């Protein structure tokens, strides 16, 4: 067969300039005054409802100067609450990482009976009030609970102790990672995995070399959100903690106690720390989005 002048299947893709496209089309944009008033309303709302409270937390915390601020933070009860919060997050986040990835993998890569039930179950912690979530553990491990007597016989402390707080945190933050991954993995489909299998890879190699690299940014995003919530959780933890000072108070609970005792500046000092953690989390997230935005977008576009 004679060779044609050009083989189109060998040609490189067309070079598309990498510049943001700004649409100047009167039929899809609003008049100037509408645009600016909408922007103004949005900024006003953000300032009033997000920025102002955040600033006030820090100003209240520093009202009496830096000395009392640091004194409030290094106070033993406050320090223990910081430690407990970090412990709870350090256990809950890795556990939810493993559970969330397995759940998302299971849901998106396999077909089985009861799949929609599993999806609803994953959403359950989002849909029930955290207080109810806490009460569930009281019902199970409390004195009158199903496992309460057994737990007491074996001298294991769950309620009003660190294990209860960790359990409540895991429950509340469970959906974050799975929910972040499921749409992403559904969109990516199973072709890459099937290709890897047909090339001789086993299940673990397929997950490690093909699935994980494809979801790593979504996963990181989910971990950050999960971590933010794990540190900030109040309702469920409040029910199971028992508010024992210096022992079972996490940062949000410590803040509430201080606030109720009218030691405002101490309350706001701890609060500013918690807000600071949240800001760092958001900062890391934004940095990742900025740094790897193209990759994230490509992953989502498929």
């Amino acid at each position, binding site marked *: 067969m004679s060779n044609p002048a050009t083989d189109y299947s060998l040609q490189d893709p067309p070079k598309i300039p990498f510049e943001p496209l700004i649409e100047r089309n009167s039929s899809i944009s609003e008049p100037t005054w509408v645009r600016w008033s909408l922007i103004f309303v949005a900024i006003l709302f953000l300032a009033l409802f997000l920025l102002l409270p955040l600033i006030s937390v820090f100003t209240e915390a520093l009202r009496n100067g830096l000395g009392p601020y640091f004194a409030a933070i290094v106070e033993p009860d406050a320090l223990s609450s910081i430690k407990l919060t970090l412990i709870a997050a350090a256990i809950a986040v890795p556990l939810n990482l493993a559970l969330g990835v397995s759940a998302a993998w299971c849901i998106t890569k396999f077909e089985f009976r009861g799949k929609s039930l599993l999806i609803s179950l994953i959403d359950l912690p989002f849909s029930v009030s955290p207080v109810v979530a806490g009460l569930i553990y009281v019902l199970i491990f409390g004195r009158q609970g199903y496992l309460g007597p057994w737990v007491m016989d074996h001298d294991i402390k769950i309620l009003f102790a660190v294990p209860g707080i960790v359990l409540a945190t895991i429950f509340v933050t469970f959906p974050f990672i799975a929910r972040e991954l499921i749409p992403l993995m559904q969109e990516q489909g199973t072709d890459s995995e099937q290709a*890897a299998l047909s090339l001789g890879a086993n299940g673990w190699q397929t997950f490690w070399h093909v699935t994980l690299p494809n979801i790593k940014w979504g996963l990181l995003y989910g971990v950050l959100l999960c971590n933010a919530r794990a540190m900030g959780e109040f309702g469920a933890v409040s029910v199971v903690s028992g508010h024992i000072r210096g022992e079972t108070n996490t940062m949000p609970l410590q803040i509430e106690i201080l606030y109720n005792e009218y030691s405002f500046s101490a309350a706001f000092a701890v609060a500013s720390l918690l807000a600071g953690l949240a800001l760092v989390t958001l900062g890391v997230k934004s940095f990742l989005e900025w740094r790897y935005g193209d990759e994230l977008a490509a992953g989502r576009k498929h």
Partner: protein
Amino acid sequence: MDIQIRDIYKGFGSFPALRGANLDIRSGELIALLGPSGSGKTTLLRTIAGLEFPDAGQILFGGVDTAPLPVSERRVGFVFQHYALFKHMTVLDNITFGLRVRKSKNRPDKDAIRKRALELLDLVQLSGLEKRYPAQLSGGQRQRVALARALAIEPSVLLLDEPFGALDAKVRKDLRRWLRELHDKTGVTTIFVTHDQEEALELADRVVVMNRGSIEQVGSTSDVYERPATPFVFDFLGSVNVFPGTVKDRKLSIDGANVTLDTDNDHAAGAVDIYVRPHDLRVVEEGSSGFDVTIKTVQRTGAIVRLITQLKHNKEIVEVELAHLDPQAINRKVGESIRLQPAIYGLFPRASHDSVRTLPDVDPLAVPEHRERGRLG
């Protein structure tokens, strides 16, 4: 490696995707599975690969039953319609993947793997692109990489699922020609799925025409085109005109028209459907045996002049295709009367007439839900 497919049944829920498929594939053959959506061609291919498991039946690779072998142990090179390249790996890493994941005792050393990958890149004519990522390649280049990746594991059989489906016409044509050359060079038994009859006829040694989970006909490209075994095959491979007729004493007559043709076809007497392709109709002189039509439209597409005509006796539409240099095609005008005679035709008993029906491809695993992704937080 030769492949035998024995009575394969496969259902998805209540939808029977394959209903007893039987097929023998010789070593080194290039075979096309051709059929409309929902005919079971992709399911058959995926079953051979081990990506689906049959409800009943056997698939033998070189006489050995593959039932206990998962896809990872079958050594099949599978090429997906949308390439399924690993987008976080370079072209080189994509091609070497199948060798790198082997157990250390079967794995060639690093240099050997690299050497093999570069040879394959050369084979698919993409030398110099080994450091690129899939996103930096055109569709045609990606499909070539996907092929190189599949060939890297020295597959016993190469399976291609609509390999050119996502590409535009020019690229598709060039890739098709190249794939044929590649097959002649490597000699790997190859099965590809397509719904494009032109692609199947141009590329394959033999064509397997499938419809609603069954194999309608297996034959060389000229066999299936010139001697379609069923009305479906006739209809699916190109367009067709159907005339009701009668066979009596080895004579065929078209109902309502003054046509009598000798037929050496030892077809049973009785009512039949006569299948004639548009280019198998001849324009004949007044007085010859044939039926009269009026020209409704004249259309010139490339080298073909297509006449849409209407039968005088029952107002049915008949499509005729003539070569543009055919004296009969020159200066045909709308409204003119001509007489047509079927030169080549197929006969099928009236009862077996079955219109082409298409069903959607059912493959729950392969269909991702395209739902809008809501962001948390």
